[in-house]
């Protein structure tokens, strides 16, 4: 009898090849090609360009918009991860308890997440409309006329206003994952704790939170990864403005490439944020790989 081969050989590669080739051709290669462009002064149109070494990276240091965009990315990452995760956890805990109509409630809170981001931007841009928007109308209706303002049109509120839209659409995801994880916690633990006289709050911290540890890890990792990808919402809601108040690295990269014909500089911006995103996400990717190969 022939000895069993350890590897699948050519057949396995045959099955893997189509997806791998597409993945390498349209994701890996373009990403590496961008890395190359980031060392050039290419304008995105001409047939030729010069290699300028790390000039694009050093000029980022002197670009005030990059500083603004990086700060906005950081704020965006913190706020649109922390707030949805905390709210999603709270919703999941409540939905896991004594509530009627759970399926409908779950359906509603996740609904914004399935909409195209452009439509979310349109909806919130419309709600924020200074003159005809529902938000200012609501404030005026309850006598808070002084708080009615052009939410997306002024530096002080524009970024916050875009993040509210992001929170609206991102609460559902952590809620779903926590809800699934909560169903995996042994109910007898709660019963035993109740017998021992532990209050609800104590039960939450000593049973629920430890039980959710794997879920916390996944929820936070995926939320952080997602936060670095921010582009659509900002582009469609504020176009980076007013001025450069809501620029993030993704949009500032886009403007440099497609508006200012600085493809080399633009790709350098993209490289920086991508490297940060990858560095932050590597533990997650590693854990997924390990789990699968185990």
């Amino acid at each position, binding site marked *: 009898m022939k000895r069993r081969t350890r590897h699948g050989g050519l057949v396995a590669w045959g099955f893997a090849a189509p997806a791998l080739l597409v993945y390498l051709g*349209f994701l890996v290669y373009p990403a590496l090609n961008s890395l190359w462009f980031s060392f050039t002064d290419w304008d995105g149109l001409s047939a030729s360009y010069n290699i300028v070494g790390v000039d694009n990276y050093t000029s980022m240091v002197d670009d005030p918009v990059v500083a603004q965009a990086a700060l906005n990315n950081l704020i965006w990452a913190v706020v649109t991860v922390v707030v949805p995760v905390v709210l999603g956890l709270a919703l999941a805990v409540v939905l896991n308890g004594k509530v009627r109509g759970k399926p409908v409630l*779950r359906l509603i809170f996740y609904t914004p997440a399935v909409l195209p981001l452009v439509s979310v931007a349109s909806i919130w841009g419309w709600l924020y409309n200074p003159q005809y*928007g529902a938000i200012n109308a609501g404030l005026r209706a309850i006598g808070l006329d002084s708080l009615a303002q052009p939410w997306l049109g002024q530096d002080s509120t524009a970024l916050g206003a875009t993040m509210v839209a992001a929170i609206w659409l991102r609460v559902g995801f952590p809620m779903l994952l926590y809800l699934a994880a909560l*169903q995996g916690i042994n109910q007898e633990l709660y019963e035993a704790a109740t017998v021992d006289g532990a209050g609800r709050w104590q039960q939450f911290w000593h049973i629920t939170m430890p039980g959710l540890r794997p879920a916390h890890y996944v929820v936070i990792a995926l939320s952080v990864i997602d936060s670095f990808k921010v582009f659509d919402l900002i582009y469609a809601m504020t176009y980076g403005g007013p001025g450069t108040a809501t620029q993030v690295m*993704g949009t500032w990269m886009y403007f440099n490439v497609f508006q200012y014909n600085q493809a080399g500089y633009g790709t350098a911006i993209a490289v920086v944020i991508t490297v940060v995103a990858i560095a932050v996400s590597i533990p997650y990717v590693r854990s997924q790989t390990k789990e699968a190969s185990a």
Partner: protein
Amino acid sequence: MTTVAAPPEKLKPGPRGGFGTTVGMTIAALVWISPLVLLVITGVRPLADFVSHGPLSWPGTFTLGNFADAWNIGNFATTYRNSTVLLLLKVPLGVFVSAMLAYALAKLRIRFGAAIMYTVFLGLTIPIYITIVPVFVMARSAGLTDSLIGLVGPYLAFGIPFEVLVLQSFIRQIPDEIIEAAKIDGAGPWRVFLTIVLPLSLPALVTVFILDAVATWNEFLFALILLNSDASKTIPVGLLNFQGQFSNNSTGLAAGILIAVVPILIAYTFLQRWIVGGLTAGASKG
């Protein structure tokens, strides 16, 4: 947890009651859904009625005229067709090649399997914008700018990591004995794949298909840079243009947004158990 991409378990009914909590959650849910409710109320009233009574009032009269205007001016007949064609071209192909790769990783003991998985899963973290300049250059040199075909490659590539992540974990759980038995009966790897692995993975395939369809339908950045004529635009790009034209016509804008999102909302309502199951499976294997 070993939740896999099956429809999620029904929420445990739990004890009935919790009146206060139910009221509180209902209010929270109403607040959450209120932007969409306002959108509907605004979309079905005449502009003059909206302007004179304000956005938070109940309509004095009702009309469907906004939808007709928005449909024509927003070019939705074209963008709907384009988004549908793209979805039908891309999603079945993406799911199929991802399933093939997932099978190779899960059951065929492919050499460097762990390295391949690591490389592919890393794709989950790559923002689209790092690739847009080279993708644009590639599409231009292939003569595929302003063509839906030009979007298929990049869309496939960015869909593969998640699809492979979910599918390989599902396929891994198919018992080896079933596959071995088929091999003893003389089935080659293709027959095993097509007649055993794919049918047994059906729940995961459906889930991945739906999630990929949503992502494809909603994708914006590649479509923005590669499509320029009105005739080739997809719904997100078309909606952005539309938004610009209707910025001073709130009722028309509301109608246009609804035209763009209502089909997704209906599909989501019917398919939500698959969506929820897939997201949970793709993520929570801790």
